[in-house]
């Protein structure tokens, strides 16, 4: 029962976060200046008919929400209209049907454009995360065990420098080095024509394109994971049960793996979940540098073309994914450590 209540509570807050993001997204699009749909409507060269046509196309002819025709709080409108006929609820209805609006640039539905991109981003993040987490846990453990030695100092220096590197810049440097000296492909997901190939050849080509972006991602994430793992293990290693284990005559390897590592893993789950926002930021930068066709590249291109619907759609997809991933991590944590359900 307690477990069920805990689950319900977590899901409730995830839904709140989701609603917050959706409402924010709705109002951002309508409040802030520089909204091109409206800028277009204000263009003096347009006839009244074509202005109205644009309004209808973007749904701007309907009142924003009950009682408010526009977002001007002084201009109140009719409160008794059908709420389903207001922009606010039409927006939600469209979202439920997976409709994220229409791109200004390509005139295609945003949802259709971004659908495939999400998978590519997940591939990149997935590979990078797995390598970074394993290496980070391993190196962090070693650094904590050998604290105050040259190994620890080296590991600390590396992680602090990796943490200070702007991700996109590291990407550029690796791109420069990789393409000049190693002859690795640096742009996109396939070589020209490879997307038509099947099977092994195609897989190998994609893998080659993944090397440099994944390397960049790993270095950036590794620094942080190592720092956190090190401080967690340091804390665990000064617990009394470590001293007991040592007194029992267990060898160092056993103590490190069976006692320290297991107990240090729990906080790592939380940190990895809390870090998802940072992860996404890294992916955006890396995709922009390497033209990896994911959500980050979509954002980069949308910024340069001032394509707001794509920008907002990408933000929405990322935010929703991160919220769900976070929820999953919290549920995983409660499964791993049943004590948190009690508190």
């Amino acid at each position, binding site marked *: 029962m307690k477990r069920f209540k805990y689950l319900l509570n977590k899901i409730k807050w995830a839904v709140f976060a989701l609603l917050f993001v959706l409402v924010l997204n709705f109002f951002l699009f309508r409040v802030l200046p520089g909204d091109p749909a409206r800028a277009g409507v204000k263009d003096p060269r347009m006839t009244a008919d074509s202005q109205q046509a644009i309004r209808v196309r973007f749904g701007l002819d309907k009142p924003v929400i009950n009682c408010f025709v526009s977002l001007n709080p002084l201009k109140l409108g009719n409160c008794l209209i059908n709420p389903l006929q207001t922009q606010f609820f039409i927006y939600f209805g469209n979202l439920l049907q997976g409709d994220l609006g229409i791109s200004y640039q390509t005139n295609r539905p945003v949802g259709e454009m971004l659908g495939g991109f999400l998978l590519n981003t997940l591939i990149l993040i997935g590979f990078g995360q797995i390598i970074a987490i394993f290496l980070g846990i391993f190196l962090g453990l070693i650094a904590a065990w050998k604290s105050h030695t040259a190994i620890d100092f080296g590991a600390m220096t590396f992680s602090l420098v990796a943490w200070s590197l702007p991700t996109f*810049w590291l990407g550029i440097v690796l791109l420069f080095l990789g393409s000049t000296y190693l002859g690795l492909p640096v742009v996109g997901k396939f070589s020209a024509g490879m997307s038509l190939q099947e099977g092994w050849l195609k897989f190998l080509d994609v893998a080659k394109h993944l090397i440099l972006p994944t390397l960049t991602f790993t270095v950036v994430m590794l620094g942080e994971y190592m720092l956190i793992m090190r401080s967690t293990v340091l804390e665990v290693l000064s617990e009394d049960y470590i001293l007991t284990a040592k007194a029992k005559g267990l060898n160092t390897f056993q103590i490190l793996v069976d006692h320290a590592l297991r107990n240090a893993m729990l906080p790592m789950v939380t940190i990895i979940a809390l870090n*998802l*926002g940072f992860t996404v930021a890294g992916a955006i930068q890396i995709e922009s540098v390497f033209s990896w066709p994911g959500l980050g590249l979509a954002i980069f291109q949308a*910024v340069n073309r001032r394509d707001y619907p794509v920008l907002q759609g990408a933000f929405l997809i*990322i*935010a929703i994914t991160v*919220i769900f991933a976070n929820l999953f991590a919290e549920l995983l944590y409660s499964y791993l450590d049943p004590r948190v359900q009690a508190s």
Partner: protein
Amino acid sequence: MLIITILIAVFAPILAPYNPKSGENVSISDIYQPPSAQHLLGTDDAGRDVLSNFMYGARVSLIVGFFASFISVCIGGVIGISAGFFGGKIENTLMRFTDIMIVIPDLPLAVVLVALTKPSLLNIIFVIGILGWTGTARLIRSQTLSVKERKFVLRARAIGSGNFHIIAKHIFPLVLPLLVANSVLVISLAILEESTLSFLGLADPTTISWGQMLNFAFTRGGVSSGAWWALLVPGLGIVWVVLGLTLLGHGLEQIFNPRLEWHHLSVNPKMIDRKEDVKNG
């Protein structure tokens, strides 16, 4: 490390060999020139001197870093202290709101906000500022919680001090050191975020920043023409400042909020000594 950067930024007009804003006579042969006696760090995609741009760019990075983190730390401090001090419903509401803000990924939201409000220096500072306070709020809340439990707060309450007085005179001074250490780390995050936004193409077009220099060099053929000087220099500047701030921040945190450095498996076991130290000191 920081002092050097600040000096460069302050004295940029004196130190820089060229003024980046003056329209010089640029010919096609000036573009992406390698470092020479005339241009110590070469020229960029528009034939401008990289060294001068670099010096002026330091100003934008530092200004954005300081002001944005000032906003963040103020919001985070107020939320953290009031959540920790008042407890109950106020704490619940504030911390739940903080949790929601933590979950929402910063960078995509910042991109959307800056893109919609037009990228100007003020907007960038404001957006980075209002998105960066969550970590500070959490840290300050937990510190306030521990300070609140101390005896002198109870005593102050016993002699009839009001909430505001207790916060201002008793809580805030004890939270301040941690707040300062944290704000140094927040500055480094803000500088990184600013450079990322400018690299993505959301820089104030009237100023020069390091991220923007990288954007120009990257999107305008710097890689294919092998212009490593235009790509390397601004990036190294960012690393230099952020690393300096991070070291300073961690150092301050270590002083104000010391963590363990020795343990039972240490090569040079000092656990027992340390415990003695703790008892004595």
